[in-house]
């Protein structure tokens, strides 16, 4: 009987290891550190509400492409005269963007961010600095490729 219990203990241990392994493997595709993939959020200081979307889906690895960023005040008023700076990179790899994208106002508080390239798979940050009527603020979007 004792012998059988020992066997079951070994069996249980193997099952635990296997399940843990599956969980780790299944978890590979979720962003590390619980990074959110929200495409609409408030800027860090709460001055603006910013939504981003790529001009064309899906976002492809490699080619230059364009994102659209809608910038509003918290009350929903479009911000039409902000200066938008674009930065970003891959925090896990310690490098920035391979290009220097530029933002320009396309109208009605929507800014075109041209010249974006994600040259490898993984979690990217797209960091927008906003200098507008509610002051300077920053918002970071996580993008998983």
């Amino acid at each position, binding site marked *: 009987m004792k012998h059988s219990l020992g066997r079951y203990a070994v069996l249980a241990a193997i099952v635990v290891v296997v399940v843990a392994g*599956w969980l780790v493997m299944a978890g590979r595709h979720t962003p590390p550190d619980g990074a959110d993939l929200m495409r609409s959020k408030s800027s860090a200081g709460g001055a603006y509400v910013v939504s981003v979307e790529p001009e064309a889906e899906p976002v492809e690895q490699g080619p230059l492409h364009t994102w659209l960023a809608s910038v509003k005040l918290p009350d929903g008023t479009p911000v039409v005269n902000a200066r938008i700076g674009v930065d970003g990179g891959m925090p896990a790899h310690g490098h920035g963007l391979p*290009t220097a994208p530029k933002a320009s106002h396309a109208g009605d508080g929507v800014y075109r961010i041209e010249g974006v390239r994600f040259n490898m*798979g993984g979690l990217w940050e797209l960091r927008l600095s906003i200098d507008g009527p509610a002051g300077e603020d920053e918002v970071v979007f996580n993008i998983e490729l």
Partner: protein
Amino acid sequence: MSSISNSSHFRGRIAKAAISSVAALVLGACDPSELGPDETTKAVSLTLASLPPLPSDPTNRVAGEPRAAAFGASLFFDPALSINGEVSCGTCHKIDRQFQDDLPRGHAIGITDRRTMPLAGIAYNSWQFWDGRRDSLWAQAITPLEDIREHGGNRLFYVRLIAERYRERYEGIFGPLPDLTGLPEHAGPLGTLAEKAAWRAIPAGQQEAINTAFANIGKAIAAFERTLLPSETRFDRHVSALAAGEDPAGDAVFSALESEGLKLFIGSAGCIDCHNGPLLTDGQFHNTGVPADLANPGDRGRAGAVRQVISDPFNCLGPYSDGSQADCEELEFMVPAGEALERAFKTPSLRGVADRAPFMHAGQILTLEDAVDHYRNAPDAPSGQSELRPLDLTDRGRAALIAFLKTLGP
């Protein structure tokens, strides 16, 4: 007694069956030669089947013209295109050696600063040279012609040569050559002091006409180079079979070690981060802590190239480009400065890599084994910040990666 024995025997069988099925699950999950669906997708992304059509080059109006490509091929292999009549593009870009020369640094009239790059699929690159100091294939092609260590000639010398040797073919493609009557034998903005002085004495309009003809030499060579495409490899055949749900056959069968290497390449070793896409390069610039070349220790790579490509009169925005400003996105959105450019060099394609030692931009690493060890150890960069982190790679993993890299050839 009997029932106890039976019961115990039964429990034992259940336990054995459970253990063996769990063991099968463990082995199945970690079977080194099985690719999961996500891994298959990644592997397929590296195959020639994923190679998009060759992008057009609006800056070169003859890029797709077979007649220009044929003319370019003649120019590429003609040693008359050098000041001593002994050096052609094909001197370093050897046709039977993947268009490279197996040397740490190219040997032409003199010795260059960097490793000769292979040319298969080169027209897919946005940036040319290891540091991207040219933004088109045609602007690249004319640069070595005026380098004193390479072809050693000067602008007027080359246009004269075309007029004497290739007038009919040139004019059939590009129209009339400029009238060179009364001009000196040698003149150019990058040559010797005498050549520079002679160049300055040429009226601006004639200089521009010579520049146009010189650019056209590059455009013809580029049209030829656009035809140099990668060939199918064992890796392509292996993954294409897997993706089709078939068992690889013949030389497409991978050994267990090769399959493990593929899994590492697209997985935990992170090779695919930079060596991605069907050419196994992202075409971008990275500091990977490659040791300085003793012959040229101050080589800063991309950091030293940005100003050159901006000021190159033959760049996308220059007067000799056939494109419009809208075609110059790479130049427009180029990272102009910053520490990330320091000692950053373009990711080379890994197609055919095992047959192409020595490695890195000046052949600093002699063997594939040492190249993998470089990534395993991730040494500090001589300057700037290496993007590499030390790789937790077993000896078996190292051997597997090397075995896999060898499948990237015919």
